[in-house]
């Protein structure tokens, strides 16, 4: 056992030496250490170093790679949490993955989504066959499932682009369910004014014991046409998804809709009708955006099933205008107004249905530059402050020779509650990298209240 281990370690050391010795490498190493001040006094000092991450990236002739070392939250040991290495050999790229979210396709609908597939271990072969097209093939392990994906893009022929894809996963006889997906997409670019395009996908789950290959209602149709005539361009498409189409690996944004985008010079109009096709089509809502230079108008009528069920209270509208300035201090501003529904009585703003006034500006003075924001609304934000209030935000940054400093503040005033947070960082540039100290958490949408933490991040290039 010991001899085996020793042999393995020697083999690793040998290959790493060979690997790094034989190629001219460039790359970077980034190290982050974070310390959180404990709320409870009895918590142990070491465990408050809640993050210790090392990112290692390199590239050389014929290969590139990256891996992360993280402090494991359970036993506090540093281990490789994910890695990716690519070897280039003539027309073939071989990539190995360890705990990476990296499986995706580039068909029209991007029907295989890396977030949905999740983290995988395995390999990808990409080969550029020149006159014979391009091929991507994945053979990976996904949580105990053997997962295969083949995406073959055929060579362009008379301005016609096509690709086919095939996916299959399988676990074992104890979990005899497997998923299969087959797709075909095309793009016909012969005529500039009329370019048809589309995609057909079958996707279903099967039980290996039945193997009935029942593919009724397991399909999706996507198709449209786009084109350009002088200054006018358009794009029209429809997505139809049959009832039993298996969406397990597809993007969550895949929904039925009818879409029309037209533009003429600086004017662009997009319309998206969100609906569910069926015997009785269920019309959800229309989203219309009109862009004219720096001006944007958004109107979204809410239909609860059909056009005649128009619901004013759920309908939305906003106007946005932004502009660059050439006056001292202010360099840019944006103003936006949003309202949902209509009020019977506009006298008491406290009882309005959702509304928002948004002001933002960039400034520059005495070597400092930054951004500021003011929002007044109910709710202030759909994401992070679902209540009536005001938000004030300002950031400032400046570079002094090799130093860079940045600070930002946010204050939210609710009806009775107050939320304040701040973040600051100082960076110093070294000949081959940089070092950065910080206080607080810079992601203000995540933490509305100041985070008692400090940290340091160093980056070295070689």
């Amino acid at each position: 056992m010991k001899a085996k281990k020793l042999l393995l370690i020697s083999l690793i050391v040998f290959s790493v030496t060979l690997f790094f010795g034989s190629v001219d490498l460039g790359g970077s190493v980034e190290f982050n250490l974070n310390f959180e001040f404990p709320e409870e006094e009895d918590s142990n000092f070491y465990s408050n170093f809640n993050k210790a991450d090392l990112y290692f990236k390199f590239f050389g002739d014929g290969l590139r790679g990256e891996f992360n070392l993280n402090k494991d939250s359970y036993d506090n040991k540093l281990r490789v949490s994910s890695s990716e290495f690519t070897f280039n050999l003539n027309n073939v790229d071989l990539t190995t993955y360890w705990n990476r979210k990296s499986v995706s396709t580039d068909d029209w609908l991007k029907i295989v989504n890396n977030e949905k597939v999740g983290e995988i271990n395995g390999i990808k072969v990409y080969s550029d066959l020149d006159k014979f097209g391009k091929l991507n093939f994945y053979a990976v392990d996904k949580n105990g499932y053997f997962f295969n994906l083949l995406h073959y893009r055929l060579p362009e022929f008379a301005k016609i682009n096509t690709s086919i894809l095939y996916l299959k996963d399988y676990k074992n006889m104890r979990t005899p369910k497997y998923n299969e997906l087959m797709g075909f997409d095309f793009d016909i670019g012969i005529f500039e004014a009329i370019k048809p395009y589309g995609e057909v996908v079958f996707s279903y789950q099967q039980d290996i014991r039945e193997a009935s290959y029942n593919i009724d209602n397991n399909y999706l149709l996507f198709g449209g046409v786009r084109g350009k005539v002088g200054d006018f361009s358009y794009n029209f498409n429809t997505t139809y998804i049959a009832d039993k189409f298996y969406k397990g690996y597809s993007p969550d944004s895949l929904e039925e809709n009818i879409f029309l985008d037209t533009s003429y010079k600086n004017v662009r109009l997009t319309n998206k009708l969100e609906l569910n096709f069926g015997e009785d089509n269920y019309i959800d809502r229309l989203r219309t955006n009109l862009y004219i230079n720096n001006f944007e108008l958004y109107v979204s009528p809410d239909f609860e099933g059909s056009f005649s069920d128009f619901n004013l209270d759920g309908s939305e509208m906003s106007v946005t205008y932004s502009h660059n300035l050439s006056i001292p201090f202010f360099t840019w501003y944006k103003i936006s107004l949003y309202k949902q529904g209509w009020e019977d009585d506009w006298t008491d703003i406290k009882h309005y249905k959702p509304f928002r006034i948004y002001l933002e500006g960039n400034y520059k003075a005495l070597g400092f530059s930054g951004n500021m924001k003011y929002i007044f609304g109910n709710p202030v934000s759909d994401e992070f402050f679902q209540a009536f209030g005001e938000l004030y935000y300002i950031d400032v940054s400046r570079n002094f020779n090799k130093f860079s400093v940045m600070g930002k503040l946010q204050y939210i005033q609710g009806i009775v509650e107050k939320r304040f947070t701040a973040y600051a960082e100082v960076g110093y540039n070294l000949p081959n990298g940089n070092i950065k100290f910080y206080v607080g958490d810079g992601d203000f949408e995540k933490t509305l209240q100041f985070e008692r933490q400090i940290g340091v991040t160093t980056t070295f290039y070689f």
Partner: protein
Amino acid sequence: MNLLGITLDPGIYLGYSKNNNVPDIEDQLTYDESLGLYKITINASDLTYSEIDEEGTKYYLSYYKIFHVKDDGNVVSSSIPIWKDIVEANNIETITIYADTKKMKDGKAVGVGDDTKLLQDWYFAGDWGGKPTWEEDAVKFQEEDGILIAKVQKDFNAGDTFEYKIKPSDNWRPWSMIFNAEIYSRDSSNAVYTLKSDTDELTVHFDPKISFVWFVESEVN
């Protein structure tokens, strides 16, 4: 400084879609001695839902918060979502919202919750050694007398720490309802638990009616 000169007399108030997040006297919670909690019952039909677009998939959530107004500093919970799908699937007509003022923390959901949260499946996911259960094999909570229970069997040592989160469904959706033992949010950091003793079974208790999580370490014989 008060927004638009809004003032509230000391008390415990509910801000929600019906009162446009601005509570008044009729939105006060009352104390229930048998439960030891403050509570208020509202009509589900009075709620309006916000459409939350989570990278293309839309969820309909109605947010509320509890204002504990008092002379020595107000305590206001974070915004807490009610999921329309759960209300509709169970034909809910009234919803009771609870507050435990002793547990409430400013800016957190802790100490505040409602009875719709017992009607959905919650999962305990984390990394307590071995294969992390973030994506698969998260432990599904089981209800026992209104409290949700999840058991983790493993040889733990005192001082071990691990990260966890409570998932609102097997696939994390809606992200806006992910609970990290403090707030319901799509991008909060993981919660951390530190073992107090050597044990081979850790029981996680989650009381969604007041968004409160606690742990019991079984004694090793």
